């Protein structure tokens, strides 16, 4: 083998290694962050739009929004949004093992979490709704039961096109979006 031939072989190996980096580096990053990416993908959500009053099958129950009322807030320029919804149980086992997350969204992508205790306006205007439980008590139900739930949110007065999203951990990435 001559010196030039050895050089040519070395050069080829050098460029091959450089080119391989372009493939190997992203692959290494992918492998090392695999779990994070999987979690991130699971967080990518997939809404099921439901019209007000319509029934929608989700996570072992039939869901329906029964009311989305706007009440005066106790702070200036705010409103209280009271969302009442119900689930008719179809598959108690499937429903029971879920954690429930509820949020209110608007057309600007803002997201409100539910208040832990209903505001005084709720007690005044809809006392029955104030006694309804939060979303998330699905243990010990049987087929045909209807679970009535209510959540209240404090939003600014100018919040428009509000939608209620309900997601159950076992049914993600799909979630319900009531308009």
């Amino acid at each position: 083998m001559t010196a030039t031939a050895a050089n040519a072989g070395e050069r080829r190996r050098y460029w091959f290694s450089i080119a391989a980096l372009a493939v190997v580096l992203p692959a290494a990053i992918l492998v090392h962050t695999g779990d994070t990416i999987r979690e991130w993908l699971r967080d990518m959500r997939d809404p099921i739009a439901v019209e007000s009053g319509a029934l929608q099958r989700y996570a072992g129950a039939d869901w329906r929004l029964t009311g989305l009322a706007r009440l005066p807030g106790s702070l200036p320029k705010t409103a209280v949004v009271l969302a009442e919804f119900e689930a008719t149980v179809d598959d108690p086992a499937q429903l029971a093992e879920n954690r429930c997350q509820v949020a209110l969204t608007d057309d600007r992508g803002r997201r409100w979490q539910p208040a832990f205790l209903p505001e005084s306006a709720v007690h005044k205007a809809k006392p029955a709704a104030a006694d309804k439980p939060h979303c998330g008590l699905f243990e010990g139900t049987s087929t045909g039961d209807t679970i009535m739930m209510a959540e209240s949110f404090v939003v600014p007065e100018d919040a428009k096109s509000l939608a209620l999203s309900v997601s159950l951990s076992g049914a993600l990435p799909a979630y319900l979006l009531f308009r």
Partner: protein
Amino acid sequence: MIGSIKGPAAVLLAAAMLYGMQRTTPLYSDITSPVPVTGRQGERVDTSAFAIGVANVHLAREVTASSFGRDRTYTTSGVWVIIEAAAAAKQESLSLTSAKWLGPNGVRHALSQRLSSMPGMPGTERLEPGIPRPMLMAFEVPESQLSGATLLIARSAVTPLAEEAWIKITDVRAQNIRSTVKLGRGNRSQPWTLEAQ
């Protein structure tokens, strides 16, 4: 001659570089520390998750606060710094639970736990998007740490790489230390009252 020096010189240079890198390796806590978003007292500071503005900074030798209908006086061997601010969440409901007073000597003072149950204190109320709320903070700091300080506000003290508002406090002078600041309970939209004496 030169060729025989080259080898050892390269080794020495590499050793020096490695030693330098080893000595200056940042701690894990530095790498994952919050990302500062700077601003000044009196202006709105916007992070991606929340906005905050600091209005008034009161200095006092003691604080009187009413709790459960009784007035209690809190003395300190340093100085009380009582801060009135306003904050709002931007996209998501959140709580601001971490506030620190970064003194000119680099020491961070945590919120005073003695007044943490006062209405309006960080963590007593969740912030909702689009609804600005008043926020009250109280620190006990040595007198030498008053001017040239920075107020650090974040959602929590431990979230890696989250944003933290760094607000330069411009309006504090040692001669403005009052003898007493009186904190009382306010109403829903302004949760506290403050009188300086």
